[in-house]
């Protein structure tokens, strides 16, 4: 309110005082601090020692050299990274897979920018990004030989499954949430049962069902590539969870909002699209980000139905006589890849939360 002259600023405590206040306020707190710092230091040093100081980086090195050095054997990554990243994608065409992954990442980043948040822009970004991805990966036009879906693999496949799960699952989730919130009791009840059923099943069993059982159940003309069936299953699972998150968010929207819109004469679909959902999404943001994180990690479960996504490519990467010993390094590498994406997502979520906190009240 009243502008403050700089002379009136409170005195800033010195570094020592702050350290004392933050870390050593009471004996218990001091103990906790020491313990935490000690633990962090120990873990950090062990990791550094193994992963860097005693590690082998020479691509030509094999088991004997690596064992002699004592630390991590990054040679396996140097030799097998293309398999990990691209899976069974034809070797000469792997640039396409790399480019496609890049496009997905760019698309994701673009759609995370608040300035792209109008339905039309999002649709444009996604349509373009996804179309390009598909064209590059699948090919089948002059210049780009056809690469069938079962040859896709590695990071590109993981991204593809994740992104399409999200794209299909999100509208489905909204539909589920609205159905469950319906005023009509039978619709609300049966969709509640459906959602709860899907939610309490393990994802593996759903993937298994969609990949393997569905061919028995569906007439042939509905059946598509196994990849698309698996994506459908994973999207359904995502939708069931996300629906509950959105519903939670909708409960957080004051009833007065909907009433205000009603009393302005705004019809149902506009009320949902313009008033309720935007606020529901804000409320549900942390949970939504969490769900995305989980979904990204759970793409690794498609290994159970025989896809060469990141994790099974990694398995194949040490699954050869030369490298069977170096599986820890491969796992660490893959875990690191997952970590980058997921960490990015969760930091972005935190940023959004802060941004919205300042936008409101």
């Amino acid at each position, binding site marked *: 309110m009243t502008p403050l002259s700089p002379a009136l600023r409170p005195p800033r405590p010195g570094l020592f005082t702050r350290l004392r206040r933050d870390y050593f306020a009471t004996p218990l707190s001091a103990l906790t601090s020491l313990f935490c710092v000690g633990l962090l230091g120990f873990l950090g040093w062990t990791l550094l020692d193994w992963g860097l100081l005693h590690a082998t980086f020479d691509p030509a090195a094999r088991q004997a050299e690596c064992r002699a050095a004592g630390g991590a054997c990054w040679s396996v990554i140097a030799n097998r990274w293309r398999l990990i990243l691209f899976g069974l994608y034809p070797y000469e065409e792997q640039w396409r897979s790399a480019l496609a992954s890049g496009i997905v990442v760019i698309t994701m980043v673009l759609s995370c920018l608040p300035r792209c948040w109008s339905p039309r822009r999002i649709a444009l970004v996604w349509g373009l990004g996804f179309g390009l991805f598909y064209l590059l990966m699948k090919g089948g036009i002059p210049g780009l030989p056809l690469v069938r879906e079962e040859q896709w693999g590695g990071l590109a496949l993981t991204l593809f499954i994740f992104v399409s799960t999200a794209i299909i699952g999100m509208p489905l989730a909204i539909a589920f949430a609205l159905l469950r919130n319906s005023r009509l009791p039978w619709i609300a009840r049966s969709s509640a049962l459906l959602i709860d059923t899907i939610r309490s099943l393990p994802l593996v069993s759903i993937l298994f069902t969609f990949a393997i059982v569905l061919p028995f159940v569906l007439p042939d003309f509905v059946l598509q590539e196994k990849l698309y069936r698996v994506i459908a299953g994973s999207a359904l699972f995502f939708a069931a969870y996300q629906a509950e998150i959105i519903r939670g968010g909708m409960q957080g929207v004051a009833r*007065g909002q909907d*009433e205000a819109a009603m009393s302005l004469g705004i019809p149902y679909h506009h009320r949902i699209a*313009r008033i309720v959902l935007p606020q529901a999404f804000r409320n549900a943001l942390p949970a939504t980000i969490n769900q995305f994180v989980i979904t990204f990690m759970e793409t690794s479960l498609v290994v159970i139905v025989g896809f060469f996504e990141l994790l099974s490519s990694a398995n194949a990467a040490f699954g050869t006589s030369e490298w069977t010993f170096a599986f820890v390094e491969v796992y660490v590498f893959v875990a690191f890849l997952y970590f980058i994406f997921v960490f990015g997502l969760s930091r972005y979520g935190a940023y959004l939360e802060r941004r919205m906190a300042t936008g*409101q009240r």
Partner: protein
Amino acid sequence: MTVPAITLRGLQKFYGSYHALRSIDLTVQRGERIVICGPSGSGKSTMIRCINKLEEHDGGTITVLGTQLDDKLASIDEIRREVGMVFQHFNLFPHMSVLENCVLAPMLVRKTPRAEAEALAMHYLEKVRIPDQADKFPGQLSGGQQQRVAIARSLCMKPEILLFDEPTSALDPEMISEVLDVMTGLAGEGMTMICVTHEMGFARKVADRVIFMDAGEIVEEGPPEAFFTSPRTERGARFLSQVLGH
């Protein structure tokens, strides 16, 4: 103007087994300004929420601007366009700027082009004396300012009737007078208004008629001076003594 703005005949409303409105009869002429008061839980909000069908009524008839409200879906949105409502807690859309709040309904419902809707919105924002806040978000305004935006938002639909449900009771003392001023201004322009409020000063100055409700019934009605100075019922007298007491 032979058709009254609002006619309620034997209006009944139940919440489960709780009888919230017990046969309410009321006719409001166009241009009339009505203040409703009564103790908490007496059914004031319920009644005005029935008028634009935020609550379904369980018996009797509601006729608004000559149209009877029934189960037919089409008529209710048409009615709501003509009946504006201002809530106790403002209920502004927090994710839209003040201007967007105001232009949303005209653009979606009346298909007004954006430029025109914005001009209209600015006109009403000026009327409630906050044109300079148009680009802020509701969360950045004080309560009094928010309530004034809510009034402007309702006005942008050019409703025939405005309903107010305790528009000042969520405000700080200093802000109440801002909002009451705006409302008094509107009343002066001949808008049909029904206002639930305990601001007796406002009622005295503006109302054509004061309605006193208790336990789901209209206990007393009449011109404000008569009601405030010599309430006819004992219940009304007791209520007045408590509200004006401190």
